[in-house]
C-alpha cells in the first residue's frame, strides 16, 4: 500500500499523455488522408494542408505537458527522491489529469474531422484559408480549457 498513491498519480500522468496522444494521432491521420487526397491533384496546396493537418497535434502536446507537470510534482524529474504520496493525494493527481486526457482524446479526433473538411474547403476555395483555420481552431478552445483545468487542479494538490 506504500506506493499506491504514487501508482495512482503515475497512472493519471500516463493517461494524460496516452489518451491525448492517441486522439492527436487519430486526428492527424484523418486530416492527413484528406490532405493526401487534395495534394494528389494539387501539390501546390502542401503549405495550407500541412497547417490544417498539424492542428489536431496540439492535444498530444497538452497531454505531455500535464504528464511533465505531474512528474515534476511527484519529484520524478531531475533524478531526485520521489515525494511521498498518500493514496488520497495520488487519487487527486489522477483526477487532475483526467480533463486533458479525455477532452484531449475526443477533441483531437473531432478537430481532425473538422480539419479534413477544411482541407476539402481550401481545395475548392484556396482564398478561404483564414476561415478554414478558424473552424478547427474552435475545437481547440475546449482542449485549451481542459489543459487549464488540469494545470489548476494539479497546482491545487498539496503534497508532503
Amino acid at each position, binding site marked *: 500500500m506504500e506506493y499506491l498513491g504514487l501508482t495512482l498519480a503515475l497512472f493519471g500522468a500516463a493517461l494524460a499523455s496516452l489518451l491525448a496522444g492517441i486522439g492527436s494521432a487519430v486526428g492527424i491521420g484523418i486530416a492527413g488522408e484528406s490532405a*493526401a487526397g487534395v495534394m494528389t491533384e494539387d501539390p501546390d496546396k502542401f503549405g495550407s494542408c500541412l497547417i490544417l493537418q498539424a492542428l489536431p497535434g496540439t492535444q498530444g502536446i497538452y497531454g505531455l505537458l500535464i504528464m511533465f507537470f505531474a512528474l515534476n510534482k511527484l519529484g520524478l524529474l531531475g533524478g531526485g527522491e520521489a515525494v511521498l504520496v498518500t493514496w488520497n493525494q495520488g487519487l487527486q493527481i489522477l483526477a487532475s489529469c483526467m480533463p486533458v486526457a479525455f477532452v484531449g482524446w475526443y477533441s483531437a479526433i473531432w478537430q481532425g474531422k473538422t480539419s479534413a473538411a477544411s482541407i476539402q474547403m481550401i*481545395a475548392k476555395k484556396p482564398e478561404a484559408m483564414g476561415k478554414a483555420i478558424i473552424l478547427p481552431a474552435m475545437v481547440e478552445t475546449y482542449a485549451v480549457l481542459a489543459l487549464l483545468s488540469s494545470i489548476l487542479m494539479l497546482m491545487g494538490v498539496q503534497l508532503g
Partner: protein
Amino acid sequence: MSYMYAVARLRAMENRFLDGAFFTRLIECVTLEEAFKSLGETVYGQWIASGALSFDKVIDAELLATCKDLEQFVPDKRLLDIYRMPYDFNNVKVILKSVFKAREGGERRHDLLSTMGAIDTETLVLAIEGEEYGFLPYGLTDVIPHAWSVWEQTKSARDAELIIDDCLFTALKKVASELKIPGVIRWVEHKIDAENIGSALRLARLNIEPAAVLSYFHKGGTLSPDDMSRLLNEPLESWGKSLSHTSFGAIFDSIQDRSDTQAVLCDVSKALSASLIEVLNSARYKSNAPENILLYLLQKDEEAKNLRIALVCVANGLNREFARRLLSHGR
C-alpha cells in the same frame, strides 16, 4: 484508400469542371474548329492533342479516363458499377436490336455502342452474338435469353428492351442494397421514378390506352407502376398536384407553358436529370460520404451531356437559344 481521401481528391478534381461561362463562350463559337480550340484549353484538350478526331470520341475518352482514375482510389468499386451499369445495359440493347435487325435483313449498328460500360464492348458482342452469355454479370445471363424469346414471339424490340430495363433496375437496387449506403439506395429509387415519369410523359403524348401502359413502368421506385398508370389518366396540368408528395411535384408545377409538348418533354427530362443530382447533394457537405463518388460521376456525366449539346449546336449551326435551353446546370 479511405473515403476521406477519395472525397478530398474529388473536391480538388471538381476545380476542373467546366463552368457556365465556358459553355456560354462555347455555344457562341461560329465554327467547330473554333469550339475545338476553346475545348483544347480545358481538361479535354489532352484527348484532342492525342488525335481524337470527333468530339464524341474526345468526350468519351475523358469520361472513360475519369472512371479509370476513380477506380484507382475509390474504396468500393461497386459505386462505379452503379454509374456504369446503365451503359452496359444500353450496350446489350444495342447489340440485341442489331441482331434482331440483322435477322430481318438490316444492318448491324455497333457504332452506337458506348465504351463507358464496365464490360468490354467486343466481349459483349461476341457473347450475345455467339449466345455464350453465361459469364455476364448483373443477371444478364438469364435476361438475354428471355428478351430473345420475347422478341421471337412478338417481334417487338420495345418489349425486349423493357425486360432489359427491368433487369437493369433490379441489378441497380441489388448493388445499392449490398452497398448499404442510404444516399445511393435513395438515388436508385429516384432514378427508377424518373425513368417512369419520363415514360409516362412520352406515353401521354402518344395517347395509348391506360390499361396497356402498365408494362412500360418499372418496379422498385417510390412510385409504383399503378401510381404511374393512375397519373396517366389525369391531364398534364394536374400532375404537379398528384406528385406533390414527392420531389417531382415541383418539376411539373414550374412548367409555365404546357401547349408545346416537345418543350415540356425537354424541360421535364432536364429537371429529372437535375433532380437525380439533387438527391445526392446532401452528401456534398459530408467530408467522407461515399455518395460523393456517385455525385462526382453524375456531375461529370452532366458536363459531358452539356458539351455534346453545345458542340452539336455549333457543328450544325442550330439555334443557340434552343441549345441554351437544353443545357443543364446541375452543378
